[in-house]
């Protein structure tokens, strides 16, 4: 295991996590989400490279494709919040509770 890559991956994941939980702006949270995904992709890619395993590379490719689809969905939803006249923040979306 390459400690540099893994520590980078762990740092990315934790930063992403922090952004997701601590920030209140949807766009920033979404960036955190993407960071978490990419951290995982980095770790997967490292292992695939270490083992020379093509399966891992295929996984990386497919995951990136899925992340792109996810981004489309997520950004659409954030845009729709924006269009609905509310600020795209979590505090604006608190009607469902209890």
């Amino acid at each position: 295991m390459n400690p540099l890559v893994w520590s980078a991956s762990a740092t990315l994941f934790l930063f992403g996590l922090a952004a997701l939980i601590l920030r209140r702006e949807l766009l920033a949270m979404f960036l955190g989400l993407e960071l978490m995904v990419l951290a995982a992709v980095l770790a997967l890619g490292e292992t695939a490279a270490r083992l020379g395993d093509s399966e891992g590379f295929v996984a990386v490719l497919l995951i990136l494709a899925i992340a792109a689809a996810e981004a489309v969905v997520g950004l659409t939803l954030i845009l729709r919040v924006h269009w609905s006249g509310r600020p795209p923040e979590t505090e604006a979306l608190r009607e469902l509770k209890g």
Partner: protein
Amino acid sequence: MIWLLRPPLELLQPQAVLAVGALCVLAAGASRRVGLGLIKAMAGASVLAALLMLMTTPFWAASPPLLSSDILGWAFQGLFLCAALPLLYLMKPADEIPPALVLASVLGMGLIAVSGNLLMLFIGLEMMSLPAYLLVARSRSPQALEGAVKYFFAGSAAGAIFLMGMALHFAATGALSLEPSTDPLGIAGAFLMIATALFKLGAVPLHFWLPDVYEASDPELTAFFSTGLKAAAVLFLTRLAPLAPPWAMAWAAALTILFGALVALRQKNLQRLLAYSSISHAGFMLLAVAAWMAQGRSPRASLAVFFYLAAYLFMSTGTFLWLKTEGVSEREEMRGLGKARPLSAAALAVLLLSLAGIPPTAGFAAKFLVFWEAFKAGLYVPLILAGLGALVSLGYYLGLIRDMYFEEGTKPLASAPHPARAVVLACAIASILLGLMPWL
């Protein structure tokens, strides 16, 4: 690499049909001349065709790489397809997109059912979830968008956790297969993936998205979520079962049952109440899975898992569709319904009794099977907690029946005969028949 070149198509027949169906629906929607009714019919027809295809799918054949073929996955695919049918029948889409999204979501569930590899599982999970976010966003409720955003962020976060778990598992075992690992890193990865499965199932404390989403969606969509998506989550969990010990599931199950039942007690909105009730039911499914794992994944115990889901399919679909047919959304509106609409009130009473697990309904048979399997598996303490939860849940199920029959109605109801009435009645009858003849 060889699997990339020679895909095992016969296992994927139903999924292929659904994919073609979704494309056809989109293509038909592009043309102005095709009406929405026809598009819905096309979507329904492709689900039926997928069901037919499923009948001829050789689930007994040897598993090809990446995929796994077993009877559990086969049976669950039937559940997914059946759960989608009432939704396609009842939804009132503005354009061709929602039917295509439903087909895509069911396609994702089918991929979970046939996957034998973590990557396939992830693809199936995302294919199932992404259309679901959009479907919530397109619901009629004013809070639809809020529900969709919450669903999206929570679901995607869970997906990211799954990916991290997968990366750890891959690093520990060097493969994306479902082999358990003894490495601490691999175990940590396995638990992260289990956490995702529990999230999808709505286990406490990973459940907070669920009531919001269920409340924000149209009732027919909620019915689909509580049956199709829930079954897919259970199947997802069973696929991951080799990686984790059963005790985690059993305790999560007990906690989920109790928590769901307790919080449901004070809900005013019926869809939210039923959402918490479905959390409680997810706990029972979880308990069944735990019992199945504790017994060395015996086929008999997997029957309890499947039976619970099959029974829940009828009960939950019937209840949510009842909300739609009667146009009732708040608990107060239930008062006096027993007099105002005797037939549909009786149907709901049967469904609620079944949800509560009163004999001779399907809900009782299902709970009985789960309890028995858990007892055989030696999960005594979770079993007692589950029993307590079932007791608490009587409080709101019977409370609803009391509201209907023993309280005076305050406002007159607009009478609206609805095509779904027949489906509700059929669900009520099915939950009695299934309770009388559980071996069916």
